[in-house]
């Protein structure tokens, strides 16, 4: 197959969702710049899964890749949902935290590294419980410190989505890019049904779930920044676009009084995706103001 035919073919969509974590990272970096760090041949595996009779994966489900984005040094941390549902264990989480910490170190020395996290995770890997939680806290610390120097960009493409403690990490990102298939929430629908009852949420009602936490709703309400098609080029372009915007003046998690005001304007007896769109106006959120604590 010649590249010429590829380039001149009608604009076929290259599904991003169908790509593995490694292929996703490669697709987002400038062509020919992908270089994996701590790859499968380094064989740093979970020390805890074998103790519980679970087969390890040589990269523990996290791919760290360096390269460039728009010619600028970058690092991508991509979570592989095909291994243990993208859950965060000691090794996979440490890989992501360490990548962010090294990007921070470089930024502190005046060498900007663009960080991108591809979230595809249910959160903590329950077999590594407290260490999963601990590494997520470490990742969060790194994101907060790093995003003062450079935008930290998160992508939620689907199909797993982004849940648990990792949804907080996503919330801390400077910019979030989502597809319609990507879902962002703290507690998965099944967990809510289990903890609060089916009258609170019927997790089998997929339409309701998607309207509640799907990418389209998250972007419409300002909890994510860009909605893209399931297309590798679209994701790539959206990433370049938000890096070009630079460090936001006030990331969402610093807009405390604005969000408290939105909550105050919300009637708890009438919370629906539609009423939320009225109150959490995306345009308003898109123009952040520096606010006093």
């Amino acid at each position, binding site marked *: 197959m010649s590249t010429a035919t590829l380039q001149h073919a009608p604009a076929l969509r290259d599904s991003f969702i169908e790509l593995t974590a490694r292929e996703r990272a490669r697709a987002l970096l400038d062509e020919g710049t992908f270089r994996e760090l701590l790859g499968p041949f380094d064989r740093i595996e979970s020390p805890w899964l074998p103790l519980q009779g679970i087969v390890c994966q040589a990269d523990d489900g996290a791919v760290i890749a360096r390269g460039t984005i728009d010619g600028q040094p970058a690092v991508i941390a991509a979570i592989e949902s095909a291994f243990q549902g993208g859950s965060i264990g000691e090794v996979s989480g440490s890989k992501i935290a360490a990548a962010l910490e090294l990007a921070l170190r470089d930024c502190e020395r005046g060498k900007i590294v663009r960080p991108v996290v591809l979230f595809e995770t249910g959160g903590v890997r329950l077999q590594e*419980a407290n260490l*999963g939680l*601990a590494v997520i806290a470490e990742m*969060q610390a790194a994101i907060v410190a790093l995003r003062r120097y450079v935008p930290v960009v998160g992508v939620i493409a689907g199909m797993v989505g982004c849940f648990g403690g990792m949804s907080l990490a996503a919330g801390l990102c400077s910019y979030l890019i989502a597809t319609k298939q990507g879902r962002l929430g703290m507690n998965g629908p099944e967990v809510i049904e289990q903890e*609060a009852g089916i009258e609170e949420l019927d997790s089998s009602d997929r339409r309701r779930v998607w309207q509640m936490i799907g990418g389209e709703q998250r972007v419409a309400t300002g909890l994510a920044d860009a909605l893209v098609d399931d297309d590798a080029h679209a994701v790539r372009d959206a990433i370049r676009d938000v890096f070009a915007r630079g460090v936001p003046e006030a990331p969402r998690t610093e807009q405390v009084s604005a969000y408290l005001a939105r909550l105050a304007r919300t009637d708890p007896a009438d919370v629906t995706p539609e009423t939320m769109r009225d109150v959490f106006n995306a345009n308003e959120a898109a123009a952040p103001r520096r606010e006093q604590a």
Partner: protein
Amino acid sequence: MSGTAETRGMRWFKALTGDTSTDAPVWSGEASLGGETASFFSVVPDPDNRFPRARDNVVGLEQGWKLAQAVRAAMEQDASSQRKRPIVAIVDVKSQAYGYREETLGIHLACAAAVDAYASARDAGHPVVALIVGPAMSGAFLAHGYQANRIVALDAPGTMVHAMGKEAAARVTRRTVEDLDKLGETITPMSYTLASFAKLGLLDTLIEGVDADAPTQAQIERVRGVLAEAVQGARSDTTRGLSRRLESETAKKTRAASIEVRRRLAEQWDAAS
């Protein structure tokens, strides 16, 4: 929250701080600690909360954003001074709030805002200390306590750290609660006990011999002493991040993989030239 029983979060806030300057669900106040003024924060039950799934000592939408507001207000007080006040998170949080409204309105962001506030306080030079007096569970602990420079805990029944409540974890992993407890004895990160949490290098001091529900004045003073010591320790740290958690002798054993990942990733970070 049924009845009027005082939670540990309330009891220890009163013991260490006195009166709160903010209403439930987030109490905040100032008190002397080791000869300086410190700010204390606790998440307490709020039986009349507008969000019915967040009336217990859980972290919900208002809890997350109000923690962020309160911590940032304390930071603001020291904005122009070199010396930053200690910030103490009194941790007694059963879980995050589970509900349709919570997810719809972005509880993940509310909790992230609290994470951000504590992390930013630490980065700004505030010594941040978490005092675990009850459950420190999952996302609720991430939001309230896990960004601290130092984590200390009462060695008492009912104090625990985990990624998921025991009953829920048993259901999800199809094990019995007894099986889970047994598993925790051999697989350290699976355990709910503070002793195991300490083995992971994450706990700085386990405070023994304190009645968590009805402490004597002497016991309260002892806890205050541990907090003041933790503040001093945090002030002497050379870095403001969380890297210290990997430096203890226990961490070198139980978190060898975390350390190895960092070492080898650093080696490979820059392309060989």
